[in-house]
Structure formats: structure tokens, C-alpha cells
């Protein structure tokens, strides 16, 4: 039981690490793209192509660069998480009502202040929705990290499959599924809580 807990924790940490790195790069990139919109299309298209590559193929390809182990997994989680994060930051910021920006400008706000005090707070629920998709996907992909020598709950599932040990498979699969479902639920609640009251009616389409 302790082992299951330890592996679950490791699983979550690896997933969060990949997504956190993607957020650190992706949110500024999304903000940057709203200023240079002509760049948005090609960059987004490129990230979209990355997303299309099957996860096992991506892990295997990255393994040739980064070797066996956690690093390769985190790098591929980073790449997969970029798209939802960049796209949602970009669309979230662009979706901010222009009259609000005008009001900010009228109050003498600088560009920086407009972004930090007006655009990002209003776009936060949308950005969070992107993070949510990214994290759930990352938890899923992390299960196959075991194939390239990374840790996490995939270890139990894979070993169970290989030894035809059903209970070991389930010991990995059940916590992995729970981890994904619970994370998704918690972030969904957070997303709801963050939506400004005036915007509650509009639904945010995450996928």
C-alpha cells in the first residue's frame, strides 16, 4: 500500500512538473503572441503538429535524445502541455472585452498594467481550463512513461501486464484513473470558482 502511495505521489509530481514547465513557458508565449498576432498562426500550427504525434512515438523519439528515465518523460509532457496552455492563454486574452481595455487606458494604465491587472485576471478561468486539460493529459501520458524507464504508476500496470498479474495491474490502474478523475474534478471546481460573476453564463469549451 505504501508503495502504491509513493508511486502515486511520484506520478503526480512528474505530471505537475511537466505541466508547470509548460505553463512557465506557455503563458508568457501566449501573452507574447497576442501582441504579435501574425506569429500566432504558424507557432500554434507547429505546436499542433507536435500534439498529433502519438505519445509512445514521442517518448521513443525523445528517448534517443534524453536517454532513459524521468527527464525524457517530463520533456514530452512539457511538449504535449504547451498547446492547450498557449492556445487558451491566447484566446482568453483576446476574448477580453475591448471596452474594458479602453477603460483601463483611460485610467492611464501602461501596457504592462493592462496585461497584469485587466487581461490576465479576466482570462484566468480560460487559462486554467487549458492547464486542466494539460494536467489530465499529462497524468495519462505519465502512465506510459514506464516504457522509457520513468517512474510512476505505470510501473505497476506494466509489470502486472508482463507477469499476467491482474491484481498488480489494477493496483496501478485504479489509482492512476482516480488521480486523473480527481485532478480533473478539483480543477473544474477551481475554474468555476474563478469565473467572474458577470461572465458565468458563457460556457468555456476546453478541448
Amino acid at each position, binding site marked *: 500500500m505504501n508503495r502504491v502511495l509513493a508511486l502515486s505521489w511520484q506520478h503526480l509530481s512528474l505530471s505537475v512538473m511537466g505541466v508547470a514547465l509548460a505553463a512557465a513557458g506557455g503563458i508568457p508565449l501566449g501573452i507574447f503572441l497576442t501582441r504579435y498576432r501574425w506569429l500566432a498562426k504558424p507557432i500554434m500550427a507547429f505546436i499542433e503538429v507536435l500534439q498529433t504525434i502519438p505519445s509512445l*512515438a514521442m517518448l521513443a523519439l525523445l528517448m534517443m535524445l534524453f536517454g532513459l528515465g524521468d527527464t525524457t518523460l517530463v520533456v514530452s509532457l512539457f511538449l504535449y502541455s504547451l498547446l492547450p496552455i498557449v492556445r487558451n492563454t491566447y484566446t482568453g486574452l483576446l476574448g477580453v472585452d475591448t471596452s474594458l481595455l479602453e477603460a483601463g487606458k483611460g485610467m492611464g494604465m501602461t501596457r504592462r498594467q493592462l496585461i497584469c491587472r485587466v487581461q490576465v485576471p479576466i482570462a484566468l478561468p480560460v487559462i486554467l481550463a487549458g492547464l486542466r486539460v494539460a494536467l489530465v493529459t499529462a497524468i495519462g501520458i505519465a502512465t506510459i512513461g514506464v516504457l522509457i524507464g520513468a517512474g510512476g504508476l505505470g510501473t505497476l500496470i506494466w509489470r502486472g501486464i508482463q507477469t499476467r498479474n491482474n491484481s498488480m495491474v489494477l493496483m496501478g*490502474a485504479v489509482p492512476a484513473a482516480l488521480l486523473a478523475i480527481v485532478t480533473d474534478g478539483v480543477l473544474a471546481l477551481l475554474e468555476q470558482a474563478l469565473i467572474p460573476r458577470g461572465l458565468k453564463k458563457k460556457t468555456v469549451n476546453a*478541448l
Partner: protein
Amino acid sequence: MRLVLSWRDFLAAKGSSILAATAEHLLLSLGAVLLGTIIAVPLGILLARHQRVAAVVLGISSTIQTIPSLAFFGFVLPFLGIGVVPAMTVLFLYSILPILRNTYTGIREVNPAYLEAGIGMGMNQRQLLTWIQFPLAFPVIMSGIRVSTVYIISWATLSALIGAGGLGDPILAGIHTYDAKLILAGALPAAMLALLASWLLGAIERMVTPRGL
């Protein structure tokens, strides 16, 4: 380090088995998506009429979608064993959500004015569906099928883990023996297949989108 084959020798030795794996992969993915489409499109249309049931069904299917890929294969293993059948089952279940959700939203989002016009022309429910709702929702449904197909092609690489073949086979063998050629021979066709399918279905999606939309 080890005897390194040239690409030409490699392809001579493995080319046909890579081709066979690609065909297997395609068959597995297409089968699952086709099955998913056959079930999910009518179900989505049905759900569009019963909103309360829709919330429940969409909730359940999005929970299924949340389950990690390898875990899902793990779940069916005790019941269905290994091979093509359990792999198809998992891929099929996974393909349902995007198609179902898009069919549902596509049908529901048809401008009510068009429906009014149809009703005014004396159309019955069935005619409204076949002549107005379905054609207008078709691009949205197609984009659901597209998302689903790309996911399924990706997941199908994993079905090699439970003995269903496909391009996951060379990738896994390559990982185990640390053989870059073998990895590439599986990973490249798998990536190409996904990109190609996405592009092809995207083109169809644009083609069927009515000019006004």
C-alpha cells in the same frame, strides 16, 4: 558498440514487417473510429432531444476519457485478456466522446430560426433532422471524428502492449533493444499516419462547411 545496419539493409530486412504493422495499425484505428461513429452519431442526435439524459451520458463518457491510456488497457485485461478484441474495445470506447459531444453540440446549436422556417414549411421532425439539423451540424460532427481519429491512432500504438500488433510493436522492440532504427521505423509511420489523417479529415471538414458558415 553493436553491429550497425545501414538503412538499406534495415529496410530490406524489416520493410515488409513495418508495412504490415502499418496496415494493422490503420485497420485497428479505422475499425474503432468507424464503430465509434456508428454508435456515437445516432446517440448524439438522440441526446440532443433529451437534455437531462444528455448531461448524465456526456458526464459518464468524459469520465471514461479521463482515464489514463495504459490504465484503461489494464482495466480490460482481466476481463478480455490480450489481443485485438480488448484493444478494439478500449479504442472504441475512447473514440465515442469527441464524436458524441460534437454531434450533440452541433445539432443543438443550429439556429432556431432555420427550424422555425422548416416547421413553417410543414416539415416533420424527421425531415427537420435530415434536411436542416444534420447538414448544418455536419462540419462540427466531422471535426469530432477528426479529433477522435487522431487520438485513436495515438492510442493504437499502445495496443501493442496487450498484444494487438500495430506500429507500437517496432517502437517497443526498439525501446527494449535501444535500437534507434527500429524506434524510428515505428514512430515515424505512426506520426505520419496521425498527421495525414488529421490533415485529410480537416480538408473534408472544410469542404463540407457551408459557405456562409
